[in-house]
């Protein structure tokens, strides 16, 4: 065995006796892996951004300044529908990813379209809620509680809106360019993004809405 082969700090992996990542032979990771990992790091930093807004909401949730509290403002029906829509859209988004892996264009586009429709239902309901709250004088200027609420839920809604734009461009790219590797990588990143937004929503509907109306 040469000294080169024994060097444990050589870049690459796989093969040989030592298959630990980063050791042995095999060369650098595939582009799909590195792109996915980079996007994963972005998603984690995005979730850390959300955690700042969650912390602000947790601290300020009771500072209503004499204005309406969460018990006065939140109903459960709309949140239940929003939650169902987003969970189902996460499911259809996963199915779109599976269809794309199998190179089936029409099912992939159909599942992406379903994802987009469900996401639009979610976003529409959220905008209606915001408009109603602002209309009854419970806008973000009313109290620290409402500032934190609009900051947190609005940030999530903004992510959903950007995600819908991204979804539209992904459908167009699949339609026009087909299953090229770079399109598939973007689609993988999009599905990661969409699933991560659903995870954030789990935190929001639990902490903001259910804890807000809990007896």
């Amino acid at each position, binding site marked *: 065995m040469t000294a080169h082969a024994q060097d444990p700090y050589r870049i690459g992996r796989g093969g040989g006796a030592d298959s630990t990542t980063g050791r042995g032979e095999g060369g650098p990771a595939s582009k799909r892996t590195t792109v996915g990992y980079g996007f994963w790091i972005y998603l*984690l930093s995005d979730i850390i951004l959300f955690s700042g807004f969650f912390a602000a909401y947790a601290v300020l949730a009771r500072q209503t300044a004499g204005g309406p509290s969460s018990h006065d403002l939140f109903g459960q029906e709309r949140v239940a529908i929003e939650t169902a829509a987003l969970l189902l859209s996460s499911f259809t988004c996963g199915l779109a990813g599976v269809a794309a892996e199998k190179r089936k264009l029409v099912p992939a586009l159909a599942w992406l379209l379903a994802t987009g429709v469900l996401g639009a239902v979610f976003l529409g309901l959220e905008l209606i809620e915001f408009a109603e709250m602002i209309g009854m004088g419970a806008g973000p200027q009313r109290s620290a509680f409402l500032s934190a609420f609009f900051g947190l839920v609005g940030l999530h809604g903004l992510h959903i809106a950007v995600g819908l734009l991204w979804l539209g461009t992904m459908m167009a790219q699949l339609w026009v360019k087909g299953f090229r590797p770079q399109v598939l990588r973007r689609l993988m990143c999009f599905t990661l993004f969409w699933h991560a937004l659903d995870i954030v929503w789990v935190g929001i509907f639990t902490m903001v809405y259910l804890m807000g109306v809990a007896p």
Partner: protein
Amino acid sequence: MSERDIDPADTAPGDEAAEGEAFAGGIASYAVGLGLAALLTAAAFAIVNLPLVWRPAIPMALVVLAIAQMGVHLVFFLHVSSGPDNTNNALALAFGTLVVLLLIGGSVWILGHLDHAMMR
């Protein structure tokens, strides 16, 4: 299946394990994940609306259900696993979770004490 098969030692986040022998993979994985997540969501709404849980314990029960549902999403939707091909993803996730816990827990802890000390 072009680029996927090249790399059995490391998978991108969201990808199923390269050999396809994963515990969570394919359409079945998403169906199971959807079922579990729907169940946990329904349980969270039920706890708030039905007299199932001792009242002061409701927030903690909701937190437990939320963390469980996040775990379900991570495993069945994002395909994070404890397998050797997923070490990097899981490590990054663990660090992200640490920062999130420090941020939220620290804020609530410190400002809760501050609130108490202000004698409101």
